[in-house]
């Protein structure tokens, strides 16, 4: 199914007017009627600042509008456009073509996620596991029952978990995780990092509850510390470290 249309064949204009161009290979797969994944190729001009998402949107605008891709904010905040770009899980809106140092850019749907179509994947499992670890402060004394308006915290206490609250739930860590590839019941690095985020929060009182949830045969102990989750996180979160710190609580090294 390889096609190589060029912009010259198109009558429409393009916002890019660069002399540089790359070959963009887009994985096409519809689970309803395709048995295997195929690739379509497009020649796309690019500027220094052009992102992979912009290149894909260029394809949708000028060549093939049926390419399925999920995106929203275009500024690495919503976590919608995660995909495998040249073999590595990345955010398409946060990856510049110029920084990939390659004339061929291959985009595929994220690993370890069921494919809806082309580059769009289902996030149900990620959201289910995220919800399972109770991603909110658990306390008995809320401002509804008392006059408390805020729960004070020192900078040192904030430092314990602040990087983990940068998670945008893009799923890149789960896509890179080797355990997720074989263990369909594994909680995953995203949920485990978020479990640590709340366990380490001095305002939270749900530590025992959360540790019980992840202390399962497919919970925290199935992490083999490959560390690939931390390598691919676009927000600088270190899920692998969070998981090890969480293990410290379970082994009694931390309280």
């Amino acid at each position, binding site marked *: 199914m390889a096609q190589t249309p060029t912009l010259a064949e198109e009558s429409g204009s393009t916002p890019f007017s660069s002399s540089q161009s790359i070959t963009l290979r887009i994985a096409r797969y519809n689970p309803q009627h395709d048995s295997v994944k195929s690739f379509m190729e497009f020649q796309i001009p690019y500027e220094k600042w052009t992102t992979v998402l912009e290149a894909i949107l260029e394809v949708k605008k000028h060549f093939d509008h049926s390419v399925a891709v999920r995106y929203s904010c275009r500024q690495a905040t919503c976590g919608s456009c995660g995909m495998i770009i040249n073999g590595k899980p990345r955010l398409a809106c946060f990856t510049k073509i110029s920084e990939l140092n390659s004339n061929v850019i291959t985009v595929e749907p994220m690993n370890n996620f069921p494919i809806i179509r082309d580059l769009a994947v289902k996030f149900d499992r990620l959201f289910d596991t995220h919800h399972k670890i109770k991603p909110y402060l658990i306390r008995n004394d809320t401002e509804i029952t008392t006059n408390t308006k805020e729960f004070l915290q020192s900078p040192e206490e904030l430092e314990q978990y602040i990087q983990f609250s940068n998670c945008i739930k893009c799923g890149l860590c789960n896509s890179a995780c080797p*355990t997720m590839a*074989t*263990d*369909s*019941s*594994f909680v995953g690095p995203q949920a485990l990092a978020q479990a640590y985020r709340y366990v380490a929060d001095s305002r939270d009182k749900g530590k025992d509850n959360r540790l019980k949830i992840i*202390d*399962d*045969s*497919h*919970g925290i*102990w*199935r992490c083999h510390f490959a560390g690939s989750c931390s390598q691919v996180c676009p927000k600088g979160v270190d899920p692998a470290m969070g998981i090890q710190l969480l293990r410290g609580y*379970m*082994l009694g090294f931390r309280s």
Partner: protein
Amino acid sequence: MRESIIMKIHYGTALAAIALVAVHILMRLTQGFAESLEYDSVIANYKFLPYAGMLEIILILLSIHGFNGLRVILLELKQGQRYEKAVSYGCVAAMITLIAYGSRTIIMVNTGMT
């Protein structure tokens, strides 16, 4: 049993086995390798109860650690309630069988069945 308790046992058995296997290797180094494997030498080791006891503990530690490791690998390989139960009970059964078979040798030697 909670997974954290199982994993604490897993790590504990590994550390203890390292220490005891080191003692075992050092004991073997006190005589030549071929000599240590001679029939009389092996029987003498089993009849020396403190050493036989240490070998028994090594057998138990390595069986627990090894079969739990196998259980973890098999659980990551495939999922399903029936499969996971079969793997867990199967590994416990295999562990008990191996310990019983290994212990049988020491018991046979010490009860004069050789």
